[in-house]
C-alpha cells in the first residue's frame, strides 16, 4: 500500500480532524444524544464536558464507530463514520472509560496484540513496544501481566496501546476518572506532550479543572444537548464579569468603603453581616481601588479579585452543579492544577 493512499494522512481539507454533524442517538424512548454538532480543528484539544449520563460517552461511541447514530453523522480525519468505518478506525485511537487492557496479557503483549490487529508488521512492533513502554514508564512492568498493574499503570498502558499506530486523532473517554491526583497530573503531562507533537484530542470529562487545563475548546453537554461551547475563558465570561471583593475591618467603615467602590463601579453589593462589599470590576480597577484604600483611613481585612470558575459556569448554564464531589477530591484537583502551573 502506498503512503499516498494511507488514510492516516487523508486530506481533511486542512480544517477539522473530528466533526459531529447533528449526531442523535435514541435508546428506546430515551434521547441519549440529541442533535449534537461540533468540530475539532486539527492539532487542537476539545473537551466534552458534562455530568454523568449527559451523553458524552454515547457521542464518542458514535464518532469511533462503536455505535451507529440514529440520525446525523460524524467525520474523523475526513472519513464518514457511517460510510467508511474502516478508514475511520485506521485514523484514530480510543481509550475507553474503563481501561480495556487485556488483564491476562503482559504490557508488551497488549501492545503487540493491538498493533497486529491495526496491521503493523511484527518487526516494527518489537521496537515500538519497547519504546512505548519506556515512554509511559512501564519498562519495569513490561513482562508482567496487566492484572498486577495499578490503576494509573493500566491507564498508561491503555494509552500506550492506543498510540501504537500513531493515530492522528485520539479519543479519550474520561481518561482520569478514578485516578489519584498524582497519576492524573502525570497523565495530563503525557497528553499535553502528545498534543505538542500534533495529535488531535477529543476528550470527555466531568472534571471542570481537567477541561480547563487541557482543552482549547470546551463543548458543554447536558441531557444529550450542547448547551454551550467556547474557550475556557469565553465560557467563564458567560457566567458574569470579574468582581472585586473587599472586607472591611470595622462595620463603621462600610459606608465609606461603599463610596470608594462606587467611584469605580456602578454595581456594588453590600453584605452588612460579613462586612463584605462586592463590586463589578476587573483587574485594572482593582489595583486602583487597592491604592485608594491604602491612602484612606479604612482598615481592610481582605481585598481581592474574584473570577468566575468553570463551576460557576456550569451552575449558570444548567442550574445544577457539575458533579457532587467530596471535599477531598476537589482539594486534590486544585492541588494538581497548582502543580501544573
Amino acid at each position, binding site marked *: *500500500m*502506498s*503512503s499516498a493512499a*494511507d488514510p*492516516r494522512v487523508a486530506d481533511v481539507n486542512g480544517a477539522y480532524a473530528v466533526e459531529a454533524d447533528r449526531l442523535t442517538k435514541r*435508546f428506546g424512548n430515551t434521547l441519549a444524544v440529541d442533535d449534537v454538532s461540533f468540530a475539532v480543528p486539527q492539532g487542537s484539544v476539545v473537551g466534552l464536558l458534562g455530568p454523568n449520563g449527559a451523553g458524552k460517552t454515547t457521542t464518542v461511541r458514535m464518532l*469511533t*464507530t*462503536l*455505535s*451507529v447514530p440514529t440520525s446525523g453523522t460524524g467525520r474523523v480525519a475526513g472519513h464518514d463514520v457511517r460510510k467508511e468505518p*474502516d478508514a475511520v*478506525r*485506521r485514523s*484514530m*485511537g*480510543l481509550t*475507553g472509560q*474503563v481501561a*480495556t487492557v*487485556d*488483564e*491476562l*496479557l503482559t504490557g508488551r*503483549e497488549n501492545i503487540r*496484540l*493491538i498493533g*497486529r*490487529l*491495526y*496491521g*503493523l*508488521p511484527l518487526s*516494527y512492533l518489537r521496537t*515500538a513496544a519497547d*519504546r512505548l513502554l*519506556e*515512554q*509511559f*514508564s512501564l519498562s519495569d512492568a513490561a513482562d508482567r*501481566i496487566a492484572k498486577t498493574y495499578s490503576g494509573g499503570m493500566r491507564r498508561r498502558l491503555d494509552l500506550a496501546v492506543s*498510540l501504537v*499506530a*500513531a493515530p492522528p486523532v485520539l479519543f479519550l473517554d474520561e481518561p482520569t476518572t478514578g485516578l489519584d491526583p498524582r497519576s492524573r497530573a*502525570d497523565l495530563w*503531562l*503525557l497528553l499535553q*506532550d*502528545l498534543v505538542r*507533537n*500534533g495529535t488531535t484530542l477529543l476528550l470527555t470529562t466531568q472534571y471542570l479543572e481537567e477541561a480547563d487545563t487541557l482543552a482549547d475548546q470546551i463543548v458543554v453537554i447536558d441531557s444529550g444537548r450542547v448547551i454551550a461551547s467556547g474557550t475556557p475563558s469565553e465560557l467563564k465570561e458567560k457566567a458574569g464579569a470579574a468582581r472585586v471583593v473587599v472586607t472591611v475591618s470595622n462595620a463603621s467603615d462600610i459606608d465609606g468603603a461603599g463610596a470608594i467602590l462606587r467611584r469605580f463601579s456602578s454595581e456594588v453589593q453590600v453584605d452588612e453581616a460579613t462586612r463584605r462589599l462586592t463590586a463589578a470590576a476587573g483587574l485594572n480597577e482593582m489595583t486602583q481601588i487597592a491604592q485608594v484604600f491604602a491612602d484612606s483611613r479604612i482598615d481592610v481585612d481582605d481585598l481581592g479579585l474574584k473570577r468566575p470558575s468553570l463551576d460557576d459556569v456550569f451552575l449558570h448554564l444548567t442550574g445544577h452543579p457539575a458533579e457532587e464531589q467530596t471535599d477531598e477530591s476537589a482539594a486534590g484537583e486544585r492541588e494538581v492544577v497548582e502543580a501544573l502551573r
Partner: protein
Amino acid sequence: MTALSSYEVPPLERRSLLQHSLTVVWRNLLHIRRMPEMLLDVTIQPIMFVLLFAYVFGGAIHVDGASYREFLLPGIMAQTMVFSAAVVAIGLTNDLEKGIVDRFKSLPMSRWAVLIGRSVSSLIHSSIGIVVMALTGLAVGWRIRNGVIDAVAAFALLVLFGFAMIWLGIWVGSLMRSVEAVQGLVFTVMFPLTFVANTFVPTDNMPTWLRGIAEWNPVSALTGSCRELWGNGPVAPPGSSWPLLHPEVATVAWSVLLTVVFAPLAMTAFRRRSED
C-alpha cells in the same frame, strides 16, 4: 517521563479475516497458558466423572457385552464436547463485559474475527479435554477396538458436534450479561440435558416416555457413534429409536440442524449486542 517524540510508523497493512482471527486465537490461547485453571472444566471435572462412574456407580450399572468403563468413556467425551458451548459463552461474555470486544471493534478489523477466533480457540480448548479423557480412559481400561479410520471418524464427529455447539455458545454469550449468568444456565439446563441420554446408562431401562426423549437427544447420537466406531459396547438396545440405529448419520444431521438453527440466532444476537 520521557518526551513522546514523533516517529516513523510503517503504513498499516490490510489483513485478511483469517489473519485477524489467528491473532485473536493467539491471544485466547495465551489466556489458557496464563490461567491453566481455565482448563479445569475439560480436565479435572471429567476425570472426576470417569472415576466416580467407573468405580462408584459402575458396579451397579450392567451393560450387555462390554465393561462399563469402556461404555462410559464415549459418553464423557460427548458431554465434554457439549460443554464447548459453555466454554465459548463464558469467554465471549467475559470479553463483552470487560470492554475487550469494544476495543477490537475500534480497530480496522472485522468484528467476526472476534467470533471466529473465539470459536477456534474453544474447539482447541475442548479438544485438549478430549485428549485428557482419552489418556484417562486408557489408564482405567478403555480401548479403541476397531480400525484407525473408524477411530478417526469418531473424533471427527466429536469436533463436528462441538462446532455446532459453538453457535449455541455464541448465542447464549451474546444474550447474557455476566459470566455468572452463563454458569448458572450451564448448570441448570445443559448439565441435566447431557444426563437425559445414553451417556452414562443404557436407555432400555428408562420409562418409555423418558427413553424416547433420551434417544432423540443429540448427545445420544454422538455417544452412540463413538461407541459403535470404537467398539465400546452396545449402541442400540432392542426397541431403540431411529437415531440410535443410525448414530453416525443422526450425529451429522443433528450437527447440521443445530448449526442452521443457532448460527443465524447467534449472529443476530452478537451483531445487536455489539452495535450499541
